[in-house]
């Protein structure tokens, strides 16, 4: 019962704070670039605006195109609500382990790309192609990162991983270092961040994610924006769960919840700032450098796993 | 008496072998035929001696058969063919007779070695004959290989039959009569067919040279 309550709480929580994180990152970036910035709440305002506009669909848009935003949103929401953000006893988490989580991201990605190809514009297909290009390398890398953690905790269920890493006696896992680097690279790529993608331009040479959603407007666009905010949140919280799981409340430990909540906000603030910093100091790379970038991430992750086995036996 | 006839047989055997060598080196077709007839005669005589010394009466028949077939009929047919095809005087070029001879001698040695253990167990008169028979068979074989024209090749073939007959008579006192008759019949029919062939080959290739018959091959 409590579990279910907690689950519902987390669901609403993630949906609500996701745009905030996005706004915070953008704000930090603006500050780092000596701009005053749009303010932390800008994403909310954007969505409100979009929800008041009329939706425009291309003539040859198929049902696929119309349904995709909802599917995307649902997937990302599910993903974000599965990660143990503040507590580990989530009734849903047994249903979906880390592999399935990666599967959900993949599902979302495939739908994004398909929807992008639906109108049949040059930009749409271009975006879809690039998205899949990034994805087919990011996905295994992410999975390998998870495998490293799973190999440490002998489990692929995220909650168990968190419990092992957070609450067993503290050990330094060199493998996790590799995994962490790889994970950050994946995070940048998956969330269309510099150096892989630049969310703030519509420049043909560079854009990936934006190219795919060019044709969307109003409510659909709003949902997509929201979904990507959720995705960012999900990835950040996954990062916390794997590499700094401290403060997450154990099952049934209600007293720890406020503490965990506070911990979460602190972590998010730091992480957002860090992300912004990363984006500022690194430059956007050519699209054909991206495979090398992702390949490096993939190799690092595999290396992490190998290192673990090396020490494990 | 026994060993005397044995020596006689050996003598004729030696002659037989000698004749095979002669055929091996003979250029002129006509003399080749004569040599063949002569070989047949040697065969006949040796057969008669074997028959006499071993009291195998049916060998007289086979001797007669040999006489009729190999000394009279076949040479006669060949002579007529020669005339009809007027290749009577034609001479064929053999490659390097000395080499052929050397190979022939090597063959004889080989044959004798092969036959030696068998000759040991053979009867009194078959001491060396089997080896000689084998040798002459191989020599005829060699002759067929070296001949470039149709007729001499056939003569080589017939000479081989001589060698076989000699083996049959001298080594084993002759095959059963029915078999010998059958063999003789085959040889005769074969000869006729060959005769027909000569004419057909002649009219198709207007020559009996075998180098015209090298069309069928893998290319």
């Amino acid at each position, binding site marked *: 019962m409590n579990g279910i309550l907690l689950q519902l709480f987390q669901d609403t929580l993630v949906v609500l704070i996701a745009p905030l994180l996005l706004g915070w990152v953008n704000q930090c970036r603006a500050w780092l670039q000596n701009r005053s910035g749009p303010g932390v709440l800008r994403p909310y305002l954007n969505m409100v605006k979009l929800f008041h506009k009329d939706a425009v669909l291309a003539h040859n848009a198929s049902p696929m195109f119309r349904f995709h935003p909802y599917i995307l949103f649902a997937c990302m929401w599910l993903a974000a609500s599965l990660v143990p953000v503040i507590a580990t006893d989530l009734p849903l988490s047994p249903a979906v382990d880390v592999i399935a989580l990666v599967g959900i991201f993949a599902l979302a990605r495939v739908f994004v790309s398909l929807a992008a190809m639906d109108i049949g514009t040059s930009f749409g297909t271009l975006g879809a192609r690039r998205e899949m290009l990034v994805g087919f390398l990011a996905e295994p890398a992410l999975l390998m990162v998870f495998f490293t953690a799973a190999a440490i905790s002998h489990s692929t269920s995220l909650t168990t991983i968190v419990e092992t890493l957070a609450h067993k006696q503290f050990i330094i896992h060199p493998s996790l270092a590799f995994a962490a680097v790889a994970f950050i690279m994946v995070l940048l790529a998956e969330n269309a961040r510099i150096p892989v993608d630049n969310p703030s331009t519509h420049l043909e040479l560079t854009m990936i994610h934006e190219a795919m959603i060019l044709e969307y407007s109003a409510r659909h666009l709003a949902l997509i924006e929201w979904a990507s905010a959720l995705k960012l949140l999900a990835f950040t919280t996954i990062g916390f769960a794997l590499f700094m799981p401290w403060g997450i409340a154990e099952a049934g430990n209600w007293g720890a919840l406020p503490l965990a909540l506070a911990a979460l906000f602190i972590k998010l603030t730091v992480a957002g700032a860090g992300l912004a910093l990363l984006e500022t100091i690194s430059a956007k790379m050519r699209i054909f450098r991206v495979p090398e970038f992702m390949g490096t991430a993939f190799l690092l992750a595999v290396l992490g796993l190998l290192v673990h086995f090396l020490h494990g036996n | 008496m026994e060993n005397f006839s044995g020596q006689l047989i050996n003598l004729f055997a030696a002659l037989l072998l000698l004749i095979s060598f002669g055929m091996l080196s003979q250029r002129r077709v006509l003399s080749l035929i004569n040599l063949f007839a002569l070989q047949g005669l040697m065969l006949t005589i040796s057969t008669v001696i074997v028959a006499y010394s071993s009291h*195998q009466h049916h060998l007289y028949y086979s001797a007669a058969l040999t006489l009729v077939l190999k000394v009279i009929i076949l040479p006669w047919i060949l002579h007529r063919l020669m005339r009809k095809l007027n290749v009577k005087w034609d001479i064929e070029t053999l490659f390097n007779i000395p080499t052929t001879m050397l190979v022939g001698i090597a063959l004889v040695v080989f044959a004798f070695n*092969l036959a030696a*253990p*068998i000759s040991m*167990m*053979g009867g009194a008169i078959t001491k060396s004959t*089997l080896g000689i028979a*084998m040798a002459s*068979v191989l020599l005829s*074989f060699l002759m*067929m290989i070296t001949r470039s024209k*149709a007729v001499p*090749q056939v003569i080589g*073939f017939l000479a*081989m*039959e001589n060698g*076989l007959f000699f*083996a*049959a008579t001298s*080594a*084993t*006192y002759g*095959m*059963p009569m*029915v*078999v010998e008759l*059958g*063999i003789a*019949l*085959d040889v005769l*029919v*074969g000869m006729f*067919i*060959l005769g027909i*062939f000569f004419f*057909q*080959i002649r009219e*198709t*290739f207007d020559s009996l040279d075998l180098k015209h*018959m*090298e*069309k*069928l091959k*893998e290319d």
Partner: protein
Amino acid sequence: MEILWILVIPLIGGLLLALFGGQRFAPELNSIMSFGTFVASAFLTVRVITDGPMTALNEQFFVDSFNVFLVALTAFVAFTTSLFSRPYMRIEQVHGKLTINMLRLYHSMYQLFTFTMLLALLTNNLGIMWVAMEAATLTTVLLVSLYRTPASLEAAWKYFILCGVGIAQALFGTILLYFAAEKVLGAGGTALLWTHLDAVKTQLEPTVLSLAFVFLLVGYGTKVGLAPLHNWLPDAHAEGPTPVSAVLSGLLLNVALYAVVRSKVLVDGALGSHLAGNLMMGFGLLSVVMAAFFLSRQKDVKRMFAYSSIEHMGLMTFAFGMGGPVATFAGMLHMTVHSLTKSAIFFAVGHATQKSGTQLMENIRGLITTNPTIGWGLAIGSLAILGMPPFGVFASEFLIITTAMHAYPWTTPFLLAALGVAFAAIFSRVQSMVFGETTDERLPHPPALVPVFVHLGLVLLLGLYIPPYLADWYRQAAALIG
């Protein structure tokens, strides 16, 4: 009694056809005579099944389960081939390839050829067997040279000389055998009788017999078409009339192999070693491999299937060489199915070549569209001969290969390679002959393909179900041969 009939009917047939061979009814007469022979052989078969092995005419003739099935097979294929040759030779005549006299020669020689083969199979006297083999050569020489074309003459000449010489070696082998035998059985007629020899084979002098076997193997092996003695075979098959190719491939080679196997039995008995078997295995393997590589560069369809015959004879020789109940069984089964299939293929090929007027394979296309029966006949026949189940050839190859893998593993890579190459070679060509587009029109007259499908039907049957009595023959024969 039946034995007499089996021999007399074709003999009379030969004489009659020598007289009337040119008449309009000659082909029918030919078929009738062959049919008579077949009936007689059928009676003989039944008799042997009921009473078991027997000898006749004071032991001059001898029938056991080994040669009786060959007799039946020979008579049967000779009969179906005569059925096939009836329309085929007519068309050849219409095309002006044959004169009346040639036709007369053809028919009478056909009967005599049958006679000689049956004689070679039935006689108990190894000498007579030799005589019959030689006679078979003579008759077929005339058949091969039937068309009188330069090519056919050349083929016939090579055939005559090579086989004549080979056979001469066989005679020498027979003489040596007799030489060894009379030491045991005494001089006179009985010393060449197979039954007697078989009885005393253990006492025969080993050195002589090993010597004799070499001569016999080289001699009869030439006629079997074992590499490297095979050179006459493709020429003779390609240049002779197609029915003759069919009987050469289907029957004569079998008879020659029969002779080899008979002598192997004696030699094995005398030597008590596996020498003969090893020699045969070597020759068989060599033939299979060489034939496979010859196959892959053929242009002439009949030549190609001639090489495939070499390959299969090699396989049989290999099987008999291995010995043992399974392999020998497989060898005999392979004899049967190969004769049936190969003759069927030659029937189909005959019509195909007649239709498109050439034996060159690149000029034969799209048989299935122009003439489905020929096309399917050729396609199915080729697949059968290539060892595709559920046809009988596969059954025997299955037994041979598995036994080889079990007993002589080192041979199997060669077999694998050879069979693969042969498959690629034959199938690629047959496929392009059977399938594809074509310009030439349908055959004006209906082809006589009943024999083809009868044969293939039998082969199919043998692949799925071997009748018990047939299996029993094979088993008894395998026991005889060991």
